[in-house]
């Protein structure tokens, strides 16, 4: 499974989707650009936090696409999610064991580090590891009712997805209009 396969599976759903900096944004844009997509073009590590702020502020389902490298940059987020994430929150960590947007330098999950164990240790009750698109689809669909953290094992690799042509303000304004009308 590649990151692109994971993103295509998530993008089929009519949720608010927050994508992490770099290729996750580009691949989501290429898979299915929608007003309910928030492309976080900077601030590596904060997609999970941004999605949490969204989930506590409006009732619709929120799915965040993070990477292993970006979650390792903001591990405290897993503790905050355990204590404050509402049921409409779902965090998918694409665990391809590398910094995929910068040339596949290995992260610590290529070695000894287990993000599912860290997420559970932080107090999260609903943590699953998936290895195929079918398992991912099942985990995404049954998460409703509980906040979820899904660690999706992936092979390294970026799709040939172009840089997003939208400005930050365009991304924000159409996203906010979409949220406001209750999508």
């Amino acid at each position, binding site marked *: 499974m590649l990151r692109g396969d994971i993103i295509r599976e998530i993008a089929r759903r009519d949720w608010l989707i*927050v994508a992490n900096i770099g290729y996750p944004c580009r691949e989501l844009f290429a898979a299915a650009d929608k007003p309910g997509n*928030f492309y*976080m*073009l*900077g*601030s590596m*590590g*904060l*997609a*999970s*936090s*941004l*999605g*949490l*702020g*969204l*989930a*506590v*502020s*409006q009732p619709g389902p929120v799915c965040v696409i993070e990477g292993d490298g970006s979650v390792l940059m*903001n591990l*405290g*987020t897993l*503790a*905050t999610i355990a204590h*404050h994430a509402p049921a409409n929150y779902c965090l998918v960590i694409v665990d391809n064991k590398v910094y995929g947007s910068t040339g596949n330098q290995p992260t610590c999950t290529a070695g000894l580090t287990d993000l599912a164990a860290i997420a559970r240790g932080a107090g999260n009750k609903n943590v699953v590891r998936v290895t195929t698109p079918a398992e991912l689809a099942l985990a995404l669909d049954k998460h409703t009712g509980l906040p979820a953290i899904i660690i999706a094992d992936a092979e390294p690799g970026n799709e040939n997805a172009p840089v997003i042509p939208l400005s*930050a*303000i365009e*991304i*924000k304004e159409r*996203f*906010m209009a979409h*949220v*406001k009308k209750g999508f």
Partner: protein
Amino acid sequence: MIDRQIAEALQASGVELVVSLPCAMLSGILDEVDGLTIRRIPVCREEEGIGIAAGAALAGKNAVLIMQNSGLGNSLNALASLTCFYQLPLFLLMSHRGGRGEQISAQIPMGLAAPRLLDVVSIEHKPIKSRPDIKQLEFLIRHTYETGTVGAAFLSPELWHAER
């Protein structure tokens, strides 16, 4: 009394979400906020709070990040490349450590640097030093939300001197 007035200023200015880290100077304010109807999410690191506040702003909610001025150093990339870049409203309410009477020497470098760091990223900031300034704080926060900008205030230790 000061703590209560600041918490009430937050409520009066339309704050709907507080994200916070503690400081010895802020503990009374955080307690007072918890006595109001404003939701508070304590975070583990300041930039996490910037992320949560940005998500709230995208859903149209008014957020404030309460932290020690030292936390500004942990927040700068997020402030510049998320909050300011997407032009999301946010108010930063900081205790200002490192001034006269500071007992912890390590507070001095960031105490000196924090206001100038905000200047570098073009964020307006005001010191809050006396009880009348708290009314101004209310207007500053409201202005931030009405204009969709980022604003900041530094709470000076002298604010509490009259009470101690």
